[in-house]
């Protein structure tokens, strides 16, 4: 017969201070574990959502980001004429030639001279907007083609000095006015500044485009388009689906965060496991008489083992639940940091997903199990007579 679960629960309640401290230790470990996974997930999700599946990004072979790439004007025309490019309303091809550069802007509220960060400036064409349906203007208006006007993403408007509506920026001996703020949701575009590509190229004295983006006529013809671009001897270009392109950019950083998080939590969990072990050993030591009585009443060794394991698993699940509860508040926080791979600023949110919840709960149960197994074994191995004599 099994010892009722309420026995284990009441024991935890009886020693509230000890239970509370042990749970607090475990909750902190689970919190760190969940928070780091949420950060990596948020980063990846942001970059994945930036791309659309039926868009293709074309850039110079060998360059790992748009900033390093360069495409001659005549090469862009060759790509534009590919039969796989979708035709938009009005018979125009849905292809945008873009120029991407980084500028250094002061971060808001830091006050120190050195807290600048690199922000992406994307020179776009009229076609760029229908290719990126995520981008929506929230205030002001769109820039006029052929003028020194720009629109900025909302993460940039929030995080950087002097880029609010009607703010001015100086590059290339020109003054640029911010005429609109756009929201691109949870995507990388929210951390960019957009202007007319010809003006941007002129100002930065860059005679070449950085990348081409086009929509496929049919999502399935990607492979033909890729082969056509990469085997053409006149082109030294590489093509990727936009989703793939942005996923690749998040890889290094997400991996870094995951490894960091895993190694930290494994080390930290040693502390929490020891805490659970101490609690459970004491719980056993204080209850030797009780254990003897239960054994005398006819409870089997494995029932005692199960009761103590249940107690420590309860500790673990309480810790896990508490840790996840606090971690879920992290979802309101937006982090803005430089992505090592593109060397430019990217804002992203902590994102809690079901797999992270499950992983965190499993992790805390494992902590409870490891912490409880030795004390529970000791409890179950006691001899009845000695245990009864002890108290």
């Amino acid at each position, binding site marked *: 017969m099994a010892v009722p679960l309420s026995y284990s629960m009441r024991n935890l309640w009886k020693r509230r201070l000890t239970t509370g401290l042990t749970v607090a230790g475990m909750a902190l470990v689970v919190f*760190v574990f969940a928070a780091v996974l949420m950060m990596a997930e948020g980063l990846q999700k942001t970059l994945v959502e930036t791309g659309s599946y039926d868009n293709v990004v074309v850039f110079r072979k060998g360059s790992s980001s748009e900033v390093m790439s360069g495409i001659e004007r005549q090469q862009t025309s060759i790509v534009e004429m590919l039969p796989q490019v979708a035709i938009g309303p009005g018979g125009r091809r849905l292809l945008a030639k873009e120029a991407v550069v980084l500028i*250094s802007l002061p971060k808001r509220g830091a006050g120190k001279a050195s807290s600048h960060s*690199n922000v992406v400036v994307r020179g776009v064409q009229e076609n760029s907007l229908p290719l990126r349906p995520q981008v929506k203007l929230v205030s002001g208006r769109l820039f006029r083609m052929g003028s020194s006007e720009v629109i900025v993403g909302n993460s940039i408007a929030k995080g950087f000095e002097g880029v609010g509506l009607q703010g001015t920026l100086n590059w290339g001996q020109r003054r640029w006015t911010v005429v609109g703020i756009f929201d691109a949701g949870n995507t990388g575009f929210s951390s960019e500044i957009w202007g007319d590509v010809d003006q941007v190229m002129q100002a930065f004295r860059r005679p070449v485009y950085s990348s081409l983006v086009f929509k496929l006529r049919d999502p399935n013809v990607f492979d033909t388009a890729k082969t056509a671009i990469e085997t053409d001897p006149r082109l030294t270009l590489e093509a990727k689906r936009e989703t793939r392109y942005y996923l690749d950019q998040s890889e290094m950083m997400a991996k870094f965060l995951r490894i960091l998080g895993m190694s930290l939590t494994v080390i930290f969990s040693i*502390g929490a496991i020891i805490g659970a072990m101490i609690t459970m050993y004491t719980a056993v030591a204080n209850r030797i008489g009780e254990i003897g009585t239960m054994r005398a009443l006819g409870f089997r060794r494995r029932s005692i083992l199960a009761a103590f394991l249940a107690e420590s698993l309860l500790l673990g699940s309480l810790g896990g639940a508490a840790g996840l509860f606090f971690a879920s508040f992290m979802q309101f926080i937006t*982090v803005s940091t430089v992505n090592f791979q593109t060397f430019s600023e990217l804002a992203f949110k902590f994102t809690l997903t079901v797999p992270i919840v499950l992983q965190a709960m499993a992790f805390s149960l494992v902590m409870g199990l490891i912490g409880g197994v030795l004390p529970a074994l000791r409890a179950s191995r006691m001899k009845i007579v000695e245990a009864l004599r002890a*108290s």
Partner: protein
Amino acid sequence: MILLKILFRNAFRNRLRSGLTILGITVAILAFGLLRTVIDAWYSGVEAASASRLVTRNAISIIFPLPLAYNEKIRQIEGVKHVSYGNWFGGIYIDEKNFFANFCVEPRTYMEIYPEFVLTPPEKKAFLADRKGFIAGRKLAARFGWKIGDTVTLRGTIYPGNWDFVLRGLYRGRDETIDETQFLFHWDYLNETMKKVSPRRADQVGFYMISITRPDLAPDVAIAIDMAFKNSLAETLTETEKAFNQGFIAMSGAIVTAIQMVSFVVILIIMAVVANTMAMTTRERIGDYAIMKTLGFGAGAIAVMIFGESFVIALTGTLTGMLLTYPAAAAFGHSLSNYFPIFLVSDVTLWLDLAAALLIAFCAGVIPTRHAIRVRIADGLRRIG
């Protein structure tokens, strides 16, 4: 003396529990020490940078170049001693995960400005004589098993194509804070190739490194340089090397802050564990305290007993942790040398370890002490177990 003996006896009355607690503190202090060292490693570039060297780059951002012609103009500015220049090459050796810093520089002046990179005279001569030659840090060469005379090919990301280099020298750092994982080659090699394949990108310099005659001139020289190129097509931003490196770290500030916060979380976790141990200890011993009170010992004596025990446990764990930090950092630094070329435990970290130990011991002792002092003698004696 007798007090100390009692404290130790008390602390180790329940060997298993004290042992586990000490083990927990050791692990926590070790983790704390390693995390602090990771942060220090992050800032090592700033620490090693000299305040008497300036870096000039394009004011728009680091990805925009400056004309080579600025070299002569900067040299004419009062207070400037040497000027060197270079570009970030961003080449990949076989695979992207083999990341290391690779630059091209103007070698003669670069050696003058950076005396901390030590080369033997024959190696230096061989490097200067071969335009396709490169020098690598001792650790970098060891990582890939390069030997003098080997040809190494990098795949360019910013400058397309495959580039061959011949290893002409292994530099050593003047002391252990110098990064020995860099890859340096001739700026001329890059420039002459660019002249052939893409003339538009020739004669462009990524950054100028400037040494000045007196460190206190740094702000004036920086302003003078920036003023000289004001309102030109390529305006400059000049700052000390320290500020320049600091700028890179400020960009990944969110991650550094996260690691910093996490390093304090581990202290909180262990605080909960030690507080738990102390609560249990005093709960078991409440009868002892009642007897002490009966004998006439005051609240102060009981507080000394409990806090003393807490300190004994915390300090034993911390000292073990501190001792283990050195071998752990050595092992850790070795496996992470790609990311953190410099990985040294600083004195500040050790002081913080100690401060953390005192904080843990104090916080863990507060509630049990209050409880032990407040308990009435009769209640304390009545309670068993």
